[in-house]
């Protein structure tokens, strides 16, 4: 008798499994999700290792389009590198690699026309894009956009601003 009462407005009301304590309910959901998450990874073609190694994830993008800190500095010193800061205008104003041009990745379409003549497009000059450091994505995105625009000699300095500052190489603005 008592059990039938609540079913009248069942649509607006939760009904199944509510007798269990709330944390137990949550735990059951998490267990179910773990089973399916792990199970689906066992059978799918593009499965990923269950235990990740740092190199699996972080090393992925360090392909031949990258320049190391030493390479970046060498091109900076020889004047054969053209540095582009892919971060926002605000961040750029606070501090950037000396003589770097600011071209925020998200403003690429709007800004490229006015700066395109400043950016060298030749095999001698390397265009080096950077953002904060390894974990930011603006530099790789900007690299792709520049290449899409026609620039052929573009590289990413993954160490970025953080590594440059740490090495105490020439900057404009403040190190933070």
């Amino acid at each position, binding site marked *: 008798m008592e059990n039938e009462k609540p079913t009248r407005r069942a649509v607006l*009301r*939760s*009904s199944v499994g509510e007798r269990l304590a709330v944390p137990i309910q949550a735990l059951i*959901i998490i267990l179910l*999700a*773990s089973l399916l998450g792990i199970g689906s990874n066992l059978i799918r073609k593009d499965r*990923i290792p269950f235990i990740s190694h740092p190199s699996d*994830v972080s090393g992925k993008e360090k392909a031949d389009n990258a320049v190391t800190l030493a390479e970046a500095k060498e091109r900076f010193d020889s004047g054969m590198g053209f540095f582009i800061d892919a*971060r926002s205008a605000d961040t750029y104003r606070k501090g950037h690699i000396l003589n770097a041009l600011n071209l925020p990745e998200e403003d690429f379409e709007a800004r490229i026309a006015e700066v395109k003549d400043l950016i060298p497009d030749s095999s001698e000059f390397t265009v080096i894009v950077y953002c*904060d450091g390894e974990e930011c994505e603006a530099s790789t995105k900007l690299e792709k956009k520049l290449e899409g625009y026609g620039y052929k000699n573009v590289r990413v300095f993954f160490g970025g601003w953080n590594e440059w500052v740490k090495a105490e190489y020439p900057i404009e603005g403040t190190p933070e």
Partner: protein
Amino acid sequence: MKRIFEHRLLIFVLRLFLGFVFIYASWDKILHPAQFAQAVYNYKILPAPVINLFALILPWVELFAGLFLILGIYTRGSALIITSLLFIFVVVAVISVYRNLDISCGCFNTAGGRKVGIQLILEDSSLLLLSFWVLIKEKGSRGNKMSE
């Protein structure tokens, strides 16, 4: 009576809304676990060895919590999970902004797009308030019976 009904209706609508947001959020991550793992890695919070496992399980937790919240299965348990997750998301976003990380959030789309920033913190905080409301107001059949 009408007010109670309206109140119930409101909670029901909130359940639907939050449920769909979480199901939608889970989908792309379930399809692209490697990209989602990279997004998790970029936050630099979890130790590297557990990132893949986390990236495999979290989307399914989001999916089930969202689905169950809509269907009314373990409703309060689902609401507890969604509220806790949103709380964690807000904390992590605040930490990332504080640490000045320039990263994609990996919230709805693993291919990039959304940046972690103030806007994301505000959005997640609003969702957190809504889901907390559901958690405390949704009584489930057990609670209802006691009140009737």
